[in-house]
């Protein structure tokens, strides 16, 4: 019985350790409407506007690093 528990524990440990490195990568087409829009910037999913034809503007849009 003890050997059965030990094998289970070792298998769980191996799976846990093996899964960890997979959590560090991210890749995506960014939905631009999810960015924080500042000073008049506007966005749809695939169009971020940081200049709308008006003069003397300063616009920005940011997202935390995924």
């Amino acid at each position, binding site marked *: 019985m003890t050997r059965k528990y030990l094998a289970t524990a070792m298998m769980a440990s191996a799976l846990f350790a093996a899964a960890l490195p997979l959590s560090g990568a991210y890749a995506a087409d*960014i939905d631009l409407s999810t960015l924080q829009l500042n000073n008049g910037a506007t966005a749809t999913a695939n169009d971020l506007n*940081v200049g709308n*034809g008006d003069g003397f503007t300063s616009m920005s849009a940011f997202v935390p690093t995924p």
Partner: protein
Amino acid sequence: MSATATALRRCQPLFRRHNATEGLSFSGSFNLNLSRVGNNTMQADGASFIIQNDGAGVNAHGGEGGNIGAYYLANALGIGFQSWSNDAAFIFTTDTFRSVSEATQNENGGNGNFSLGANPTNLISVAFSYANDVFSFTATNANTTQSISKSLNFDLTDLGQKVFIGFTGGTGGFSAYQNISDFKLETSYAPTAVPGPEAGAGLGALAMGGMAMWMVRRRKADDQRA
């Protein structure tokens, strides 16, 4: 320090990695469309792709005009595209924005290194990457067929422990339509920050220790019932 505490300490980098600069690499692409307004003979002033750790975080924005919404942001690294008569494409940091932009504007006998301001429309495809302390980009203007590549040695952790990624734009006495589309981003973390053999062993030991304690408790319970 106990074995459990040591194992947990070694796990910490994994759980505080979101939005962190330590070990971060990234790459991606976007399209930048700069178009002049109405019958204006020129467009101004440009846009940037920027990585920053300004105190205002995601709400940060910089100066108007040739500052292209990027200058005055603290702890920043970016790619600037200045139109108007500047016609410059360059990599900047907070400390070098002014000097690098001026030097770039003065290239080619004062004509800059990347024609933008006098063109009615500029559809620019940009590919960028940061890895092994090197930030680089290649930009190609479909309307002029001009292409340019730049790189800069830079340690991203100099910006601080976290960064925000995004875009800025600025206009002045002249203006423009300045749009970003097709933004693709891939981020990853260096293996050194992922729990290595030592940390992995610690996690395994932690899990095995838990299982062992559970087995001991179960055995004691079985003995008491017997």
